[in-house]
């Protein structure tokens, strides 16, 4: 055996051992600090994990861009909706007077908030862009109350890691981690461009998550569950989106 091939063998061995040790250490660190998304398995798992981990390490507290009033889109585009269910039509006929948001799970005081309860909380507005995964976008003013205030009201347990939220319409649910749930721009939105939030844009109640793509901003919210694990929700991938083939984390 020549010097070169022996040296090559040793080098390859050292590199391989270092690589395996490095990967397993990275895996342990990622799990410990919650850097692996619920859909972090499978062939696209490494890419999703790199994206989510990079965003959480580098951009956790950053604020979505806000725009001057002059940049509000004259023609906002409300995406296509499935025909409303009877449950929704019933609420619509009653002027959404009985619309409730049930907040439960890992909280001290599970509470059902009416729209007027939510309106009595501090109201804020933000002019941010809705960004669809298809490529189009529009800028609008969104008026509502930060989700963090509602979570403070119900008292979230310290081990909570995700907030799961459901539309009144079937099979439409998402979740965000606590970084996005407690983010100051994550709003329970009830108004748009100085009026009530139109039904086509998610009225009477939509969760706006402006640091992620539009599909995370679920329309017609009626229910929220705080949890420490996504394993028992649906197929355990984090939301309805990965079950339909789309990433759970849409902040890219």
């Amino acid at each position, binding site marked *: 055996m020549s010097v070169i091939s022996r040296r090559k063998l040793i080098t390859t061995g050292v590199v391989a051992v270092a690589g395996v040790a490095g990967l397993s250490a990275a895996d342990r660190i990622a799990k410990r600090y919650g850097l692996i998304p619920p859909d972090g398995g499978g062939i696209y798992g*490494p890419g999703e994990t790199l994206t989510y981990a990079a965003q959480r390490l580098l951009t956790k507290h950053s604020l979505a861009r806000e725009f001057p009033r002059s940049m509000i889109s004259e023609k906002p585009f409300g995406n296509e909706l499935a025909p409303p269910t009877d449950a929704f039509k019933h609420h619509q006929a009653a002027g959404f007077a009985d619309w409730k948001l049930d907040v439960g799970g890992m909280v001290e005081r599970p509470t059902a908030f009416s729209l007027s309860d939510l309106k009595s909380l501090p109201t804020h507005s933000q002019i941010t862009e809705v960004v669809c995964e*298809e490529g*189009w*976008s529009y800028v609008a003013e969104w008026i509502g109350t930060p989700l963090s205030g509602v979570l403070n009201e119900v008292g979230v347990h310290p081990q909570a890691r995700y907030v799961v939220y459901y539309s009144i319409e079937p099979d439409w649910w998402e979740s965000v981690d606590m970084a996005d749930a407690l983010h100051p721009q994550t709003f329970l939105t009830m108004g748009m461009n100085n009026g009530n939030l139109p039904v086509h844009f998610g009225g009477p109640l939509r969760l706006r998550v402006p640091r992620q793509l539009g599909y995370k901003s679920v329309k017609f919210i009626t229910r929220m569950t705080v949890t420490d694990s996504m394993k028992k929700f649906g197929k355990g991938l984090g939301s309805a989106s990965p079950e339909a*083939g789309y990433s759970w984390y849409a*902040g890219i």
Partner: protein
Amino acid sequence: MAASSTVSQISVARTEAGAPPRHTLLVRITHWVTVLSFFALLVTGAELIVSHPRFYWGEAGNSGTEPLFRIPIPASRGTVPSGYSYTMPDQNGWSRYLHFEAAWVLVITALIYGLASLLNGHFRRNLLPAPAQRNWPAFRAVFARYFRRGPPDAGEANSYNVVQRLSYLIVIFVLFPLVILTGLALSPGFNAAFPIVVTAFGGRQSSRTLHFFVTDLLVIFLIVHVAMIALAGFWSRNRAMITGHIKSQPYQTKERV
């Protein structure tokens, strides 16, 4: 130091009669990984365009606003005014997953290649035009030879001419950084942290349009690159990029140390 000398000795050991390889092992590996990730990005990017084949300028744009231009194909989503009465199959889910995974592969490969090439002198020695090439006559001579379909100079089996060097430098230091930055400018999370990037490109929709244009330039480069390889000798050039060998003799196992 120890590691890099080992790598170069391995490379030397694998070529014939002690000649240095035409392309180093690092260049060969990063070249083909880039080819794979670029094709994944190109195919999935095209699929994503099909969901909204309209391009805008400025910050915002959608089916209700006037596009800068549109690609005259049917869309995969029913809300897009494409002019067609039917929709294409929707492939956005896996296309998005693969686009971003391939982007990570491309960026990590580019960082390894870029850093190593700065340190080992690859950029300076092989891609920066050599002193004798830094003049217009040398530049024009290469083009004149291309246009009369003349054979390559003898030296070009082992080195690049000035037009090749400048093309590679533009692709490596202008087009790839631009396509990565315009892509990052489409990420809402990245924009929140680094708004200056999307603002510098003129807004979100401008960034998307520029991402498309820079991709077009990379595709033009790819077509010319492959055409020139075909003209110079497709298999000999590919062999050089796969094994490192230049000559057409088969690989000599006996000479392997």
